[in-house]
């Protein structure tokens, strides 16, 4: 009996099997230290399998009882290619739903890949425009905002870093805000101010003007942040 045969028997079911080959396996294990080590190493896993899959439930339905987590994801492995070579006749839609499913799946995959590509492309493109024109920094920055009117610093360093939440708020700005290069259009130019006062909001010629021009209330933190952002883009 060779090592392969011993491994086959050990992984086939409970050992000793109660047959004549048990003696041969034991003789091999006593002579072959590698197989002996392997058998000892595998023992807990094999026992677990044998305990989990009892012989009493081997052929009754349903045969496998396991309460498992609902959020698990099965492995995304398929053996699709294995089906088709075994079918000798040409496949027809009526005769092979498996092949049909896989064709549909392939089409879905292709469509999804194309859609993803287009989306990513447009996203990257718009993101580039967004960054270029608005100067909004990448998500995740935690550094304190730099002074917007500090001309001694290069522009890239003057740009404040925002958290993801702040970024989300900023991303909700009207598209018009990003369609113009900051500072180029006179009508979008506003005075920079560290904190907005409600009395001054009427002078703004940007998002805050629309949102707060008729309001006597002190703007919310989010509004202030958006307004400051406008001022930062539409600098003097």
């Amino acid at each position, binding site marked *: 009996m060779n090592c392969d045969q011993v491994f086959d028997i050990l992984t086939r079911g409970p050992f000793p099997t109660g047959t004549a080959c048990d003696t041969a396996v034991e003789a091999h294990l006593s002579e072959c230290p590698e197989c002996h080590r392997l058998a000892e190493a595998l023992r807990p896993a094999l026992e677990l399998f044998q305990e989990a899959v009892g012989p009493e439930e081997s052929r009754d339905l349903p045969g496998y009882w396991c309460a498992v987590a609902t959020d*698990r994801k099965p492995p995304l492995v398929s053996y699709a290619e294995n089906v088709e070579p075994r079918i000798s006749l040409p496949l027809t839609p009526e005769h092979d739903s498996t092949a049909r499913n896989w064709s549909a799946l392939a089409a879905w995959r292709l469509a999804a890949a194309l859609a993803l590509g287009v989306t990513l492309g447009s996203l990257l493109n718009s993101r580039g425009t967004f960054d270029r024109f608005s100067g909004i920094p990448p998500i995740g920055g935690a550094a304190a905002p730099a002074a917007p009117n500090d001309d001694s610093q290069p522009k890239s360093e003057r740009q404040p870093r925002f958290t993801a939440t702040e970024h989300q708020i900023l991303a909700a700005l009207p598209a018009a805000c990003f369609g113009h290069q900051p500072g180029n259009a006179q009508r979008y130019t506003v005075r920079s101010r560290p904190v907005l006062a409600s009395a001054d909001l009427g002078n703004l010629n940007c998002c805050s003007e629309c949102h707060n021009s008729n309001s006597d209330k002190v703007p919310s933190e989010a509004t202030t942040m958006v307004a400051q952002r406008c001022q930062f883009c539409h600098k003097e």
Partner: protein
Amino acid sequence: MDERTTQSDAVLIERVRAGETDCFTELVRRYQSALTRVARSRLGRADWAEDVVQETFLSAFKSCSSYDPRFQFRTWLWTILFNQCHSHYQRRLRSVPIERWPEECEPAAEANHEQASGSPLKQLLAKERTEQLEDLLLQLSAVQADALRLRFFGNLKFHEIAETMQCSLNTAKCRVRWGLMRMAELLRNAGAADSARRDLDQEREA
């Protein structure tokens, strides 16, 4: 005894192809349990597993007229099962998520389980072991876990595993071997962690 129970898969599938569709019942009887077990282990839910197994048999039945008898029926069936598991999972990803039915909602299953397992203590232990096994399988690579499922739940021979997974015989053996080794390692680690926790508790009590 029905003569069909003693006939080989090849003979039965030939008879099905010749028009004796009743013979397919015997093939279903032979493989339904093992297929359900593997599908359940792979998908994690009994209801999905039953759906997939049903689709597998349906697909096999529809395709049996074009089945090539040079290949083994059972490995062909297992391959269809894996494909159905995959496509079922993909379909579920696209559909509205469905909450898993609680255990109490599977009375037939519970009753069978109780009947099969004997005492409540044995039942509880078996349940724990199966949960542990499933957790360990999830920690293996997908191919290793599938190879182990085919070997232990499906009782496939190594060359059948190789055929089903479209790999060489040695690869199939290696997947089973390394999968088991990894499981054994994980079990050892879990045991070591448990004993360390117990020691810590004892020290605290002291």
